[in-house]
């Protein structure tokens, strides 16, 4: 129902100095009472997006509609939105009571009402009787709860949470995740939560928005994001994945690792695809029975399961398996996979494009990611840039390189580089397609 949408982001863009684009054209609708998580690696723009909803940043373009009204340029103190900050941002010169009452006192509420509301907020966060405590006598977890109390006491329509659990230790974080979830159900406030922790996102959210480099990669329920990732980035970022390059051999059969598998996703035969198999989707078996055969190269105990890496017989592709059973390193092993555990995604046939001058004319030049190679000699290739993302795809790595002109290039390379490496892209001359752009005047 349309009227249940509380906030809508419409074509939101953000760039600094008109150059560095942080957010490019984001559209998102959030329903009243929903728990939405913005998830992505650092630098994906999730915090910037949250800050724009909070009013701390003004978008370069687009609208933020709250109940259908554009609030994109309203200052934070005029929005019915409250924020729980990453480092809590509690006022160190005030005690717990004064911190929580800060917003209420500004609204000039009568003193008895302020006291009642502060008491109630402290009950919600389980810190009854903490009114007189000084902020610096509280533990990290307690400060966290006070920060939440200070925000919810104002009864905002939307609560923004900017990686609020980042500074807590593992156990405390798990505890707070559940508590936040309960609080959300109890209060009925819309929560927009920012995190880079995929486990946290999967545990808490009604819906997850996966972001990468300022773009939405996928929006969906946690189960869907995990089991039906829309692209290799999501598959790689959410949980552990095995990603293989393959080709459809029939409508619902796919060929990868030199064998044919049946799957549940249908694409026309001959389509280039990427195949994602979760480590728990594979079952170890004897070498003879195995559909995928190889040699165990590592086996690590992870508490409730063993993480085993099997090197496929082509000596290039590694397959990660979670299993209850320990496997001997060096042993031959076989793996089985059910059709429903094979997720097939269209291969990103994105052709790289750049403009080049050749024989006095300007050309549009195109090359395919798999034809290019990376080199650390800046002068060797024709494009220079920094690696910004790496996705492991079985027998090679898929790199995103951002050039000095801030353009993205995709390169497949079998060698491992690091994020941030300065590289140049070598493209064999015969693999470049040229299209005449315009004659030199």
């Amino acid at each position, binding site marked *: 129902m349309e009227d249940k949408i509380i906030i809508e982001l419409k074509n939101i863009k953000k760039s600094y100095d008109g150059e560095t684009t942080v957010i490019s054209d984001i559209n998102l609708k959030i329903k009243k009472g929903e728990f939405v998580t913005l998830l992505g690696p650092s630098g994906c723009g999730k915090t910037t997006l949250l800050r724009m909803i909070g009013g*701390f940043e003004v978008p370069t373009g687009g609208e933020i509609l709250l109940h259908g009204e554009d609030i994109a340029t309203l200052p*934070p103190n005029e929005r019915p939105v*409250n*924020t729980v900050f990453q480092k809590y941002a509690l006022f*160190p*010169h005030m005690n717990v009571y004064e911190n929580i009452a*800060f917003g209420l006192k500004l609204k000039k509420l009568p003193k008895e009402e302020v006291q009642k509301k502060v008491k109630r907020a402290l009950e919600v966060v389980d810190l009854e009787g903490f009114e007189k405590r000084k902020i610096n006598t509280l533990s990290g977890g307690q400060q966290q709860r006070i920060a939440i109390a200070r925000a919810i006491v*104002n009864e905002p329509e939307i609560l923004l949470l900017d990686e609020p659990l980042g*500074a807590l230790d593992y156990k405390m974080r798990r505890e707070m995740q559940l508590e936040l979830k309960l609080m959300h159900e109890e209060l009925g406030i819309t929560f927009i939560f920012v995190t880079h922790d995929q486990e946290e996102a999967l545990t808490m959210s009604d819906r997850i928005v996966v972001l990468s480099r300022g773009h939405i990669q996928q929006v969906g329920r946690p189960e869907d994001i995990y089991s039906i990732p829309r692209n290799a980035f999501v598959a790689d970022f959410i949980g552990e994945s095995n990603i293989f390059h393959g080709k459809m051999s029939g409508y619902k059969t796919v060929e990868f690792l030199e064998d044919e598998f049946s799957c549940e996703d249908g694409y026309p035969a001959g389509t280039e695809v990427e195949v994602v198999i979760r480590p728990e989707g594979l079952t170890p078996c004897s070498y003879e029975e195995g559909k995928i055969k190889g040699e165990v190269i590592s086996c690590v105990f992870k508490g409730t399961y063993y993480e085993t890496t099997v090197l496929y017989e082509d000596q290039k592709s590694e397959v990660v398996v979670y299993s209850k059973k320990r496997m001997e390193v060096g042993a031959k092993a076989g793996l089985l996979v059910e059709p429903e555990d094979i997720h097939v995604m269209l291969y990103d046939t994105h052709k790289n494009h750049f403009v080049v001058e050749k024989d006095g004319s300007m050309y549009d030049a195109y090359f395919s990611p798999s034809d290019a190679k990376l080199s650390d000699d800046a002068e060797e290739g024709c494009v220079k840039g920094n690696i910004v993302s790496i996705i492991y795809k079985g027998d090679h790595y898929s790199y995103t390189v951002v050039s000095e002109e801030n353009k993205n290039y995709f390169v497949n390379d079998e060698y491992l580089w690091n994020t941030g490496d300065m590289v140049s892209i070598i493209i064999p001359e015969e693999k470049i397609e040229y299209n005449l752009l315009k004659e030199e005047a």
Partner: protein
Amino acid sequence: MKFPGRRLSIPYALFLLFFVVLPLVIVFYYAFTDGSGQFTLENFLNFFQNPKTMGTLVYSLVIAILTTLLALVLAYPTAYILAMGYVKNPRLLLVIFITPMWINSVLRLTALKEILSAIEGNIAYYPFINTILGMTYDFLPFMILPIYNSITKIDVSLKEAALDLGASNRSVLWKVMIPLSMPGIISGITMVFLPAMTNYVVLDLMYNSTYIMGSLIGSYFNAYDWNRGAMVSAVLLLSIALLSFSEKPERKEKVKVGGVSE
């Protein structure tokens, strides 16, 4: 081998002994003795019974308080604007504010005198205002710097949190920024008030009088009355010490925000 940590302090310990402790002992010795070296309270009583010395003490206090207030009123907004990034190049501006300190103070004040006489006609008509102006001019950087430093240390998210909770810019300033920059304000006040109590040069140039403590001591010493001069110094020293200790000690900065190791 043991690191000779303690031995490293010997040069300064010697300096301390000869140029701080010893002179203080001498000051107090002279303050409580008469010309022939006999112990006496006469100098002490004289200080509080003599209307001239008492008047000078009060007068010095008034000048110091007014100078401090004027400097604070001028410095806080300046420091705030610089620290909050409302200007493009705050560092450069800060340097410009501090440059006067690189010029010899006598030269600086002489220049100020010329400017004031161009405005006022004859500066002898307004010695009191001129003294305060001269002192404020002299000490303003000592007020701006600590306040600027304390404001830059305030986490931006505290300001954002206040805005987020519905505070107007004015409330953010009064309820968050000023209370949190208190350490800077206090050290600024200390660094302006105390020198203003005892400054000699400004008064000499702007007022041509001995109505301030420093000049009073000078006038006694010029008349070879070491004992009374020393008593004025001793009283001044003690009153400043009292003022310094009565201030709330600067809040120890909490580095720990809480969290992981709790």
